[in-house]
């Protein structure tokens, strides 16, 4: 039961983009771990870029 709730909560976070930064860090650790000259973005910086990119183009419909 607790597991089920935890999974639901994970989905809600993913759906809303609440965990975007954590997923970005995971992606970074997996693919760009060796690049010491470009450290990962801070949470605020990442969110700023992600939000500005998200609203380019048709994202909402009728």
């Amino acid at each position: 039961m607790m597991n089920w709730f935890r999974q639901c909560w994970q989905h809600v976070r993913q759906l809303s983009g609440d965990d975007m930064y954590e997923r970005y860090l995971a992606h970074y650790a997996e693919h760009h771990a060796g690049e010491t000259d470009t450290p990962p973005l801070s949470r605020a910086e990442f969110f700023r870029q992600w939000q500005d990119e998200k609203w380019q183009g048709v994202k909402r419909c009728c």
Partner: protein
Amino acid sequence: MIKGLWGRAGWSGVTLLGVFAFAQVALARGEALNALWLLAAAICVYVIAYRFYAAWIAASVLSVDATRATPAERLNNGRDYVPTNRWVVFGHHFAAIAGPGPLVGPTLAAQFGYLPGTLWILIGAVLGGAVQDMVTLFLSTRRDGRSLGQMARDEIGAIGGMAALFGTFIIMIILIAVLGLVVVNAMKHSPWGTSTVAATIPIAMLVGVYMRHLRPGRVLEASLLGVILLLASVVMGGWVDHHPVLAALFDHEGLPLAFGVIAYGFAAAVLPVWLLLAPRDYLSTFMKLGTVLVLAIAILWLRPDIHMPAITPFIDGTGPIFGGKVFPFVFITIACGAISGFHALIASGTTPKLMTSERDIRTIGYGAMLLESFVAIMAMIAATILEPGVFFAINSPAGVVGKEALDAVNTISSWGYQVTVEQMQHLASVMGESTLFARTGGAPSLAVGMASILGSVFGEHLLALWYHFAIMFEAIFILTTLDAGTRVGRFMLQDMLGNLHPKLGETSYTPSVIFTSALVVAGWGYFLYIGVIDPNGGVNILWPLFGISNQMLAAIALSIGTGILIKSGKASKAWVTGLPLLWLLLITTTAAYEKIFSADVRVGFFAAASDLSQKLAAGVLPPEKAAVAPQLIFNQQLDAWLTAFFVIVLWVVVLDMLNMSRRYLSGKPVLPLTEAGYVATRLEKGAV
């Protein structure tokens, strides 16, 4: 073996229930039909179509391949290309495609009775809309998530690409105007509604600042805060309504409200996204999902009876809300919920970049459209559980039934739908409004319907609160569409103007931003203004125009799908998109023909223009109508030319596609397929 038997028995049961429910819906005469039958028929149709038709299309027509890596996997960059859980993508996709359209269209189409609209919502969705969404999603997934316009250009030719771009731009203008009109009609002389809708702006800004600066990226916290404030603003509105000074401050005619919406639209397009658009979108998405869920539960709990007859005499074209016969106008009025071309823009470009496996194409492309169709069915239920007299009193414009309450009830009662002035006054007072007459546009009648459903489940004394909650709920995502649409229109315009003068194409060059935003806002602002000064309500003109343009875009998307299927050597199965395309060609061309050439002044644009000019010349118009007549005449003529433009664009694309297919089938060279090469997936099942 045993499992197979159970499966077969189960599907037979679903089919039987579906047939029985459908028979109840279609054949019920005389006694009231319970809304549960409608729900049951809808759910059975969806389940069967999803299980069999969609599965067959995925396997045999599209040849979906679960071993093939998706663009999200191949091009994973942790940002826009990200392999994402299937249900999360489903949620994103549904939130993106489902706007206010499926709530408004069915409510207006209820003037024909519940049956024509319901049948079209169900059949249109399973054979048309969901197929379009799924095929477009598939094609874009196979092409690195390319947009509809790019696919048209790459696969059919430059003409198709241009048409898709222009079509989208003009739809956007018409769509925003008509949605703006719906909000204006809901706020007219309603201090409660107006103050609540106005409060959503500072609330959204607060949420925006919170998630950008105070607690960066904490989306859920910020949204929760926003939702609580929104609910508080509904309650506060009631207080404003009872306060003599504040009530006067928020009590306005349509025109000043329209100018307010126009000014707001301009501000929203120029302000940074994080301040208004992005936070408003979070709030409207949460509100939308929550309210749809609550409404579904309330309908199941309450099992209301439908009071609207299955078919009304207005199928002959004399309906008060909009003119025109049931064919083709029910198919134009209900676009979103049955088939909506706009979805093709979401299904290409955004969603494919998130999908983990091609296996999810059926769930996301076909399934999300079924859910939107279900929302449309619920809107139909909310509209038709009202007494028909009340429904027509709320939705008929003053220009048709008369300005005075007594005239309106007499006219409506003379049609055989009994309603009294006292009944309407009582209804308005329990809903916390001064009047509910002539609130054309669908939002108020839907809000009354929703309030009655939710009120009977959660307590009658809260009716006014539920009514204004429903108004706020609709307004908030209408305004989201308005913000997002104006911004997209601006980007498209900058893109086009950038070809003429590169500086204008820079999306961060302030003079260009202000100039292009002003042009886009002026475009829809013009139609909104005309809609408000039109005594026949404006919706009568704008909604069919929107329907025709949206169906035109759907036909373009289906043309692209059909053309690519034929080019891929699947001509024998291209009827899957070809048949809905044929149907859309038939209805949009017929509807456009009638809107242009019909002699009926309530249908034909030119007929209406010349009728009005004659009356103006003869001096028989009352002074306030004579003052706006020249503008109305010009607008009718403009609308006629616009309709002609839509049909021409549509036929150009279809003929272009047919020409390409003919060349391919006779062995002549055509543009090559641009499908990305096969790469085997390395993601394990359930890895994400």
